């Protein structure tokens, strides 16, 4: 399958005394294996759009196809890996159990054959993210960056073909953020999943993505799609390289144009 996510005419309005239109007329196709970033100002509906793709929220208008069907069907097959803003690790469970969570829930999905999802070995992924020595630790014993690495390990162990990440590094300090970002780049280049990533950071979007989707302020509409021409692998690509800076400037300019237009 070449299209992992297909959105047509997506709209979402939050009801209330004064209804708030969060998204309007979103058309987007994400190809399988692509790393797409949703970028926009606060209130542009990036996270809402991601939640609609995950099936955590319903759209008021339009259609959503995820891996060839409705999002909830993909979720039932455990084909969606979700990384929320906080690491969302279970504090009572050890790192190994947290990373292997997908094997403990919705076991019905494991009994049928799913060629799209390829669960990975927990210890292998923990070694990949540098947490092999902390497999028996509890999340409270880990730093913020290590917790976020454990959260990344959880989705890569799940082996879902589609990963949805909602500002996963927003709570980290700049140094930790840049290190965990490189970890994600490394993991993605090794496992080649389809990723839809939400961020506020133009630098992060430029460094990680194949394509950046720029959203306007509320209601969120797509105002620009920017292809990122930086060759992969990018693990050694410095965040302050000319290529990254050029894409970052393009993203920021598109954001400003979208906000003023």
């Amino acid at each position, binding site marked *: 399958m070449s299209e992992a996510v297909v959105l047509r005419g997506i709209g979402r309005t939050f009801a209330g005394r004064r209804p708030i239109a969060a998204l309007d007329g979103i058309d987007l196709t994400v190809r399988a294996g692509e790393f797409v970033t949703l970028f926009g100002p606060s209130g542009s509906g990036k996270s809402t759009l991601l939640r609609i793709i995950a099936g955590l929220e319903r759209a008021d208008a339009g259609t959503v196809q995820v891996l060839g069907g409705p999002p909830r069907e993909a979720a*039932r097959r455990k084909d969606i890996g979700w990384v929320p803003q906080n690491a969302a690790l279970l*504090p009572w469970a050890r790192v190994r159990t947290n990373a292997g969570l997908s094997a403990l*829930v919705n076991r019905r999905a494991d009994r049928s054959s799913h060629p799209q999802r390829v669960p990975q070995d927990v210890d292998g992924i923990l070694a990949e993210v540098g947490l092999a020595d902390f497999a028996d630790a509890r999340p409270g014993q880990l730093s913020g960056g290590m917790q976020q690495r454990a959260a990344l390990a959880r989705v890569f162990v799940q082996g879902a073909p589609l990963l949805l990440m909602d500002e996963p590094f927003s709570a980290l300090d700049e140094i930790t953020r840049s290190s965990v970002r490189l970890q994600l780049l490394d993991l993605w280049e090794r496992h080649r999943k389809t990723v839809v990533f939400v961020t506020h950071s133009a630098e992060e979007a430029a460094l990680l993505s194949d394509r950046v989707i720029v959203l306007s302020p509320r209601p969120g509409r797509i105002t620009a799609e920017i292809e990122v021409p930086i060759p992969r692998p990018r693990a050694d690509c410095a965040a302050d390289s000319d290529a990254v800076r050029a894409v970052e400037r393009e993203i920021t300019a598109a954001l400003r144009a979208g906000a003023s237009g």
Partner: protein
Amino acid sequence: MSARRVALAVGAPAALLLLLGLLWSWTASANPSVLPPLASLPAELAARPDFYVRNLGHTLVSALSGFGIGVGAALLLAIAVVHAPVLRSAVLPVALLLNVTPVVAIAPALVVAFGFTQVPNIVVAALTAFFPMLINALAGFRNVDRGSLEVFRSMAASRTDVFLRLRLPSSLRYLFAGARLSASAAMVGAIVSEFTGSTRGLGATIVTATTYLNLPQMWVAILVSALVSLALLGLIGLVERIVVRW
């Protein structure tokens, strides 16, 4: 823990107890009809240990049975409410009504219904233990990290998975807090219910002692019930420390 902290943790309560002991002795000598001499309490306990053990046993059976029934019912109801929120508006007002109805008023009505048996004591203990656990369990089961809930939902985890692997463990601190409140409430409920229609238990012992102005017996029964309640709280705290290790 540093030596200073240990000294403070042991010394402060010891100093307070000493002060209370002095105050007690002064009151007892000034007005013997209010408090018995402090030395008469251990003498009373040593003279009739079987009597107090028997009555404490009766009260403990009522309190612990009531605690088990009340806490069990509260947990089942909280689980039902979390999975069917529509029940919340039906259940909470009734639970609140039960909670605000004075135990002293219920106890005689239960004696009429169940006779002079231990059943009214157990029912009152269960009623008093029910509400604190219900409120804490509801708060605990609902107070789940949103990110974790989304991770579970993104994998289409079943309700059982969400409850057993997320809601239950993340609510343990609430549940232990509820258990502590419910244990004290069950002891109070059992003793108060023994005030009416019971010839056994610490509550009945206190009432009998009051009738005959047997101050040493009354105060030994009161102190024994307080110490046993304290021991129950300590036991629950110990189990919490073993279970909740994060």
